[in-house]
């Protein structure tokens, strides 16, 4: 029994710490990257990942209660709204005539959606 509790504590600790590490790396990326799109790629990806990890770590600590349910709601909410709002931001920035850095990037509407996909799929390196 106590063994179980200890393991859950350790697991939640690992989750929370790695989540906050991702948050931090996202912030570093927000500062170090050269233009808006790379920054957004750093911020939005780590935002979603870090929030997910931290909240699930807390969920493990809360046990089985109303608190867990609320954490779950927050997590779902962040998972839905985070990517949606960063998508909207990228789109607005693209429409305002801002172009991603790079040599051969064609900007037309289909390329835009691909751009979003790829930024969602790649993990950022801190």
């Amino acid at each position, binding site marked *: 029994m106590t063994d179980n509790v200890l393991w859950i504590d350790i697991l939640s600790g690992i989750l929370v710490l790695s989540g906050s590490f991702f948050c931090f790396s996202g912030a570093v990326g927000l500062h170090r990257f050269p233009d808006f799109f790379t920054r957004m790629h750093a911020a939005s990806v780590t935002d979603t990942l870090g929030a997910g990890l931290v909240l699930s770590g807390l969920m493990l600590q809360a046990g089985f209660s109303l608190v867990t349910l609320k954490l779950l*709601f927050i997590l779902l909410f962040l998972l*839905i*709204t985070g990517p*949606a*709002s960063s*998508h*909207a931001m990228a*789109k607005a920035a693209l*429409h305002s005539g801002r172009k991603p850095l790079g040599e051969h990037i064609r900007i037309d509407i289909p390329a835009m959606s691909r751009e979003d996909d790829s930024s969602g799929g790649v993990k950022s390196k801190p």
Partner: protein
Amino acid sequence: MLSGIYGLLSASLFVVLDAVDVAFTEAAVGAGISTILMLTTLAITGRYELSRPSIRTRIGLLLVLVIGVLLIYGTLGMPYFGMPENPANGHVAAYYLENTEQQIGIPNYVTAVLASYRGFDTFGELVVVFTAGVAVLALLPHSRDGFVVDDMQPMKHHLILRITSKLLLPFILLFALYVQFHGDFGPGGGFQAGVIFAAAIILYSMLYGLENAMQVISFPVIRFCAALGVLLYGSVGIVSMLKGGNFLDYSVLLETPVAGQHLGILLIEFGVGLTVAAVMVCVFFTFTGSVVSPAKSARVVAARDGEKTQGAP
């Protein structure tokens, strides 16, 4: 020019300072509604400003520094931070903390003080909110049953945002109801719930345009609700007077005082929520309704410029 980050920061400060109810309100109001209102006004007035002569800045800086130093000198006589025996924590506050359990019977002290001990104050605040809504309606033009909607384009091209928000809306409304009726037990209550409810409607009207939002909840209904909330609050007070108690003394409403308090708090919180939500939505609609489209604005400017050039020679 400005960002809504300020409200976010101050709300997290309030969490650290134990003021969960206040943090709740500040989160909803400072981060959400006030940012939106500021942005709407900016959209009406334009983002750019003139540069000022620096002499004015220097005089202002000097004045501010002098006042600041004086104030800091004044704080030296203030009681230290966080001490339980500070004068602010004596008097009635201790009384509230001791007696809420027997007299009111709800765990959230803030709600107890807000709705019951200080119910008359809160009534006054609610009337202020209502009056502010009336003032905004009086200041900005609107026709009797709605506006001539000269709305800016709803965000048609943000398909993903629209779908996401539509998915989330029912949950936001549900959450508002939860906050409304859970205010006796946890952080929350009429003010917060009203603002969240208003935020949900504002979200809808931002994404789908004012006309669609008005089909969901029409303008006369909103105005009616704003008045109804104040009326509900006041009539709870009147009823408690008719039953032989003081104004807003809920103990006489039902057989036992505690049950009466529960009913009274529930009713007046509902009144507060109704009025706050209605006033916020109403203010937002009025503001958005008076945002003119770029074309029309350009026409106005052109007309003004024409006037100027005619008048100049």
